């Protein structure tokens, strides 16, 4: 009935051997999956740390939850081809869409807080290649790697009793992470842009740019605004209306397009290309390679920026990741956040009920 021939010798050892072979494969698979090593930081752990910090609002990004789509174009001037063979740098104009966001974890959070102002962009060239970027208005990031990111989320989780992080936990974290303290000092000492329109948006991480001759250089970039800078009054931040920043940029765009200049900064030997907590010297020369024009805003509910993810590793040929550990962390975290919110389904954005945004409804 079992199909074992009569007189089979060494049956038990053979069955054990077969079992052992299968166990080795299964064990190897389990190891690869991380099931045997719970300490291994996976992409789920990154997003779990965000959800544990500020909760889950179904349907929304787990960070930079509050946002507004925009449509525009990018006009390259051809200068970028000295650094990269990416067709995005060939002279000419391509359509773009993107998203303004603040760094908050909940989509109904107020705009009058100290947080990132961010610009995400998706650029598609005529050959069908796609370049996605997720940029913040700071040249440095609070942490350099996954472990620190998770620890930072834990240390800044509000205590339900006080509504604020546990001072001891936060103090212990900062003592162990001078790079985060450096970032906090930067935020304290730097003015907050009064508008999405007058922020400078940085790549944070360096990327490998390879030119047509095959030479590779490490490059960071930034978008510099044409709109003149003005600062928010930090003392009265809490009095700002909930959607003040988004209302302000909706209003600006109703008056006319907004423009930024894309500047590429190649690293010089010795510049930290794998550490997003360290800025490069301010006097590094940059190359201006094109102009981003944002023409109109669209609510996330109706726009192209909600049902995709601005994974910074969606890159065209000619641009590739550096070894900065944060790139894989971001790509993985955005992937999990997208998967979770896609399963939760669409929910009305905070701006959908904002009277100032009603002009944007289709």
């Amino acid at each position, binding site marked *: 009935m079992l199909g074992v021939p009569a007189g089979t010798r060494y049956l038990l050892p053979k069955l054990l051997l*077969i079992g052992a072979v299968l166990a080795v494969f299964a064990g190897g698979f389990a190891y690869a999956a991380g099931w045997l090593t719970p300490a291994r930081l996976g992409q789920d752990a990154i997003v779990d740390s965000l959800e544990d910090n500020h909760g889950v609002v179904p349907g929304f990004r787990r960070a930079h939850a509050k946002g507004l789509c925009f449509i525009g174009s990018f006009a390259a001037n051809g200068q970028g081809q000295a650094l990269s063979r990416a067709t995005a740098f060939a002279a000419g104009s391509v359509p773009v869409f993107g998203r303004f966001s603040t760094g908050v974890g909940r989509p109904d959070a107020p705009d009058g807080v100290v947080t990132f102002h961010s610009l995400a962009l998706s650029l598609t060239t005529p050959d069908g290649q796609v370049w996605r970027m997720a940029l913040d208005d700071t040249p440095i990031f609070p942490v350099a790697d996954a472990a620190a990111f998770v620890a930072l989320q834990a240390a800044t989780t509000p205590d339900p009793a006080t509504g604020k992080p546990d001072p001891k936990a936060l103090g212990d974290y900062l003592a162990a992470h001078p790079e985060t303290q450096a970032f906090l000092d930067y935020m304290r000492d730097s003015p907050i842009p009064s508008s999405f329109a007058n922020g400078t948006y940085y790549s944070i991480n360096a990327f490998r740019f390879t030119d047509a001759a095959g030479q590779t250089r490490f490059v960071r970039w930034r978008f510099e605004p044409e709109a003149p800078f003005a600062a928010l009054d930090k003392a009265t931040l809490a009095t700002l209306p909930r959607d003040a920043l988004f209302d302000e940029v909706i209003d600006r765009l109703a008056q006319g397009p907004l423009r930024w200049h894309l500047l590429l900064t190649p690293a010089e030997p010795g510049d930290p290309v794998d550490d997003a907590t360290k800025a490069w010297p301010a006097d590094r020369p940059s190359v201006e390679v094109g102009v981003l024009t944002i023409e109109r805003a669209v609510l996330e509910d109706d726009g192209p920026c909600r049902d995709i993810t601005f994974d910074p590793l969606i890159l065209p040929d000619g641009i590739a990741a550096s070894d900065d*550990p944060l790139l894989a962390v971001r790509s993985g975290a955005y992937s999990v956040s997208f998967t979770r919110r*896609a399963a939760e389904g669409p929910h009305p954005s905070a701006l959908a009920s904002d009277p100032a945004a009603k002009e944007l409804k289709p």
Partner: protein
Amino acid sequence: MTPTAIPTRFSPLARLLHWVMALAILAMLFIGVGMVSTVSNLRTLLLDIHRPLGMLILVLAAIRLLVRLTHRPPPLPADLPGWQKAAAHLSHLLLYVLMIAQPLLGWGLLSAGGYPVVLFGAFHLFPLVPQDAALFALLRAAHGWVALLLFVTVLAHLGAALFHALVRRDGVFSSMASWRPGNGGSA
């Protein structure tokens, strides 16, 4: 009508495809489950291999299906218990279904998620399905479950193959593992 020869081995092409794809599929399963378990820089490398390897498996699977439909495989031993014959046929059918479904699911989930389907360099595929977040969520979940199902089926297949090789010693293992040319057919 000439009597058709009954093969004792799979055709050389079928055998080549089997072993190349066994390696590729096993590699893919480990790469796939590994790349979502880590946020180290290894993740980026594994992802960059995952997409083109997945498409290679799809192309090879299509060729293999054609070969399977046009070349008669060797029959299972007459004295093999009926339930084992049924299990063999069902598990092989399942393997074909899964090895074709899985890359299609991967291609589909990237398309539905609004990702470009980059294989290497500037070469990318067209979207297999329209962009749709709910469809993305469905396909992404299915891709994960099919991966586990495929792994379990591969393990069962491997265990059965070793059972034929070591315990029954009935020629089934060598029908796929043989180096000899031709399919050993005899009328």
